[in-house]
């Protein structure tokens, strides 16, 4: 228990000293609460097609205007942002759990298991993620946000697996792990009780990276038209906007908001993962 609390305490102490972390936490808090706070002020029914007059520029009645499908853009953002976040978090979570498991096994056991897992991980890393996602998404035709998350999670485990493996390789040689081995603890318990708590900060850092990667992949599939057709996620909104030539028609209020929210989201996640890397690798902190 103690070993879990220590990094958590270090994390709290570190938050105060890292502007990157403060900015990213604030931004993410804003984005994550946007859906629930927004739905208190905005009628989310207006995110349904043909609920308002089409192609209206921003006005007092529709703060971000309306699109060609008869949706209020602000309402679409309030409904869509949580959906995009949900997809990213779900895919990142599945990916990181799987990656941590592979990293622990591969780093701890070494030998043939490590060689196979590492070879597969490295091979998968060089394959453009879009290529596999395309083939899968085009034949499965994901209809729900959760389904998309599962498909994307198929390609979210490689980076976590690599980072965790590297960490476990060095942890494995530390005296306390040797001690646990000598005192006859089973391999399973060593991994679960001695190694896992020590890779949690790193796992969390790679979770943030995985969420960002998952949202990126999701956006890629969505703007290509392979997203959930009936859910107004941020990526789908960009897809519809481009499909109805919002650019050429000067309807900046249609494509602008989802692009802005996504940009903020990616910056926040990037800053957070950079800050968490500094927590997980104290050596980076002294240098910068």
């Amino acid at each position, binding site marked *: 228990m103690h070993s879990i609390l220590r990094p958590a305490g270090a994390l709290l102490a570190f938050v105060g000293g890292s502007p990157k972390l403060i900015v990213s936490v604030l931004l993410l808090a804003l984005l994550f609460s946007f859906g629930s706070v927004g739905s208190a002020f905005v009628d989310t029914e207006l995110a349904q097609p043909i609920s308002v007059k089409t192609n209206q520029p921003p006005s007092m009645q529709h703060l971000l205007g309306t699109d060609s499908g008869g949706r209020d853009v602000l309402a679409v953002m309030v409904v869509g942002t949580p959906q995009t976040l949900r997809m990213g978090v779900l895919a990142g979570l599945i990916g990181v759990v799987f990656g941590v498991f592979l990293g622990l096994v591969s780093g701890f056991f070494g030998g043939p298991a490590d060689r196979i897992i590492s*070879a597969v991980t490295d*091979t998968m890393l*060089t394959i453009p993620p*879009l*290529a596999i996602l*395309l*083939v899968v998404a085009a034949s499965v035709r994901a209809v729900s946000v959760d389904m998309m998350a599962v498909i994307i999670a198929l390609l979210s485990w490689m980076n976590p697996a690599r980072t965790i493996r590297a960490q476990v390789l060095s942890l494995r040689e530390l005296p306390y792990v040797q001690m646990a081995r000598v005192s006859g603890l089973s391999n399973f318990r060593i991994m679960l009780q001695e190694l896992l708590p020590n890779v949690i900060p790193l796992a969390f850092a790679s979770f943030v990276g995985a969420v960002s990667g998952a949202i990126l992949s999701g956006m*890629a599939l969505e703007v290509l038209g392979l997203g959930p057709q009936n859910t107004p996620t941020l990526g789908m909104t960009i897809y519809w906007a481009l499909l109805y030539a919002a650019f050429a028609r000067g309807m900046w209020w249609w*494509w602008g908001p989802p*692009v802005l929210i996504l940009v903020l989201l990616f910056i926040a996640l990037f800053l957070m993962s950079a800050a968490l890397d500094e927590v997980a690798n104290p050596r980076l902190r002294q240098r910068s």
Partner: protein
Amino acid sequence: MSWSYALRRIGMFVAVVFLAITINFIVPRMAPGDPTAAVLEQLLSRGQQVEGAADIVANYRARFGLDDPILLQYGRYVWNTLHFDLGYSISYFPQKVESALLQALPWTLALLLTATAIAFTLGSILGALIAWPRSPRMVRNLAPVLMVLSAIPYYLLALILLYVFAVWTKFFPLGGAASSQSALTFSFASTIDVIRHAFLPALSIVLAGLGFWALGMRGAMINVLGEDYLTLAEAKGLRPHRIFFAYAMRNAMLPQVTSLAIALGTVASGSVLVEVAFNYPGIGYVLYNALRSSDYFLIQGVAFFLVLTVAVAVLLLELAYPLIDPRIER
């Protein structure tokens, strides 16, 4: 270069290509529904009696050879794919998939390779300068800007550039690769035209990649700067720019080249989307058309080409790597 290193890399390449072919083979078979039926239905729903429809159907039947044992089907699929026989395209009919892709490939390669080379070189130099203690303050303050840039995906950056420079100020064309593609010649005007069309897509890839390479280089450079041989070089009285390029940067480049090999897959995925944003007539544009008409063989073909292109590039990089750093072979 030792044989075992080269063989290992080539083995890796073969594995990647086989994995891609296998995924292309297995995934549609796991999906519900009969692929032949789906394709037929689609052809019929288009209403038009395409010339040689019987030919396509025969081609599909043979390809899916649904009565054959699955291993035989797989073997045939691998054989065909390795011979670049990827079947007929629906949206580009009567073209075959491979010829539609081969037409698009030069555009993609030119855009992707040029932009990545610029981003990589510029980013590495910038990153090294940011880490270098004697750089002007202005350069060293660039780090946060580059960090933000590296966080924004290629595609979103492309949309923003497209709006600012093509829709709003009209400095650059809205999309495509040339004003009229059929009239392309090797004249001066034509060259300028092509460059003007490629500028914004390339700029998106360069800007989005710049931060990534600069940050990586900065990290590697900081590591190198602590080394004893740099202190020695300074003590010997070598000129600063010689220390910077020949001692510090040269050694810090090694991890950069490794991460180039790893990042290439993501870079290629990103630039495909940039092509879609700009209607650039490369693989990305073919993909967009294929998706809109549910041209399944073409989608598979794009996926395969994407994997193949990146795998070839990674293989070349990895075979060149021992020339830069002999330690890697171990």
